């Protein structure tokens, strides 16, 4: 039960939304999919005085591509991303990650913008967007700026968003010749990732590694981005390389989360196992 009364706004334009946000500062919360916010309000974990529902704001939806990038509006729902031919063509691991979020009902409402801004350490998009080198367009009443996904996540539930800022689009650079895969380890269907791994790899014509990027989610308080290219460039792909990827990833997990589900030692090991599995899937 939500115990604290609140005022509710449904702005129709971004300008309206930003103005309301500026006016009420941190007493206001944005409502997008509501799949995290409303349960948290029901549990009494957050009690905002003002709710700004941005589901009707023009210009925040839609998936489109340009010659260089895939551009996804902040309030695009997970099920749209999961079933989009465009996304699957350009960056399959994003579509894969979206299809793993929660359950079918959650995917009908939850949004990419909401998930990214909530920054739950176990959210499926986070490692994927970092590996993909996504850029977030962020606006307030005065200006817009671009923030790299690799610099956006500061801590659990903490991002680089400043007061009064709204994430408006997620922009993913197109890359040719890469393959990508996303592996999620959840203990219960529809649950958060206990650990997850997003991998992007590019091979040259001789099946040697040219680029290797790994993103780990659910293991530390924020996603861990690892550019493994320096250690693996020029290597021919084979079983031992996969095992080295695993070892390399595991060794770089510094501060894994321990909770009721699993302790840090397990999460650290799983980061490596999932990275290896995602890597092997990239190779086909």
């Amino acid at each position: 039960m939500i115990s604290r009364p609140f005022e509710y706004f449904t702005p129709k334009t971004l300008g309206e939304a930003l103005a309301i946000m500026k006016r009420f500062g941190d007493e206001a919360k944005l409502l997008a999919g509501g799949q995290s916010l409303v349960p948290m309000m029901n549990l009494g974990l957050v009690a905002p005085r003002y709710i700004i529902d941005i589901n009707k704001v023009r210009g925040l939806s839609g998936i489109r591509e340009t010659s260089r990038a895939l551009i996804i509006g902040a309030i695009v729902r997970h099920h749209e991303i999961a079933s989009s031919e465009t996304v699957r063509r350009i960056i399959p691991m994003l579509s894969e990650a979206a299809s793993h979020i929660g359950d079918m009902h959650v995917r009908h409402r939850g949004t990419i913008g909401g998930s990214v801004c909530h920054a739950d350490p176990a959210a499926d998009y986070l490692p994927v967007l970092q590996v993909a080198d996504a850029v977030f367009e962020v606006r307030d009443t005065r200006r817009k700026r671009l923030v790299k996904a690799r610099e956006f996540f500061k801590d659990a539930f903490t991002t680089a968003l400043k007061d009064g800022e709204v994430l408006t689009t997620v922009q993913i650079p197109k890359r040719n010749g890469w393959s990508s895969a996303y592996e999620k380890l959840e203990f219960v269907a529809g649950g958060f990732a206990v650990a997850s791994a997003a991998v992007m790899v590019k091979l040259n014509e001789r099946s040697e590694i040219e680029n290797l990027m790994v993103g780990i989610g659910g293991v530390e308080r924020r996603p861990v981005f690892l550019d493994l290219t320096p250690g693996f460039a020029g290597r021919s792909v084979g079983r031992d390389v996969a095992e080295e990827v695993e070892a390399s990833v595991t060794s770089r997990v510094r501060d894994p989360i321990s909770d009721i589900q699993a302790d840090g030692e397990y999460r650290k090991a799983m980061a490596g196992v999932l990275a290896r599995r995602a890597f092997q899937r990239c190779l086909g």
Partner: protein
Amino acid sequence: MGESLVVTRINGREYTAKVDNRMLLCDFIRDVAGLTGTHVGCMTGNCGACTVLMDGLTVKSCTLLAVQANGSEITTVEGLSNGLALNPIQETFHRNYAAQCGYCTPGMLITVHYLLSKKTPMSADEIREKLSGNLCRCTGYVNIVKSVSELLKREGLLK
């Protein structure tokens, strides 16, 4: 002041009320529209007992504020039913003992109705995957999956 006007269509009928902003959609459906078939099991969006159709998609009505339903079309289990007569999905559940206490059943029926309407071929494992957003504590899901398999088979959609 902390209240909003809600105008929404549920099962084809329009409901208008000024409600506390804190009212969840599931509470609007139950307390304002008087349609108590939609049940509340957790209020954290985990159990799916409150599943309804909103603008053609299944949603957990405990994760939506009532005021968010302004201008929307909602279907609840009552909208799939005709008094106590059983439609083909309900009749299949009845014959296969797929409902015990009945608390998860309305949400389950909405989800099954939605899945069948997509006309997508599914295997038993895929059925299990698609139903995983609706928890049941009584049946162990065995007869629910059996019922959905039967319904798909009838349409030639069981993989």
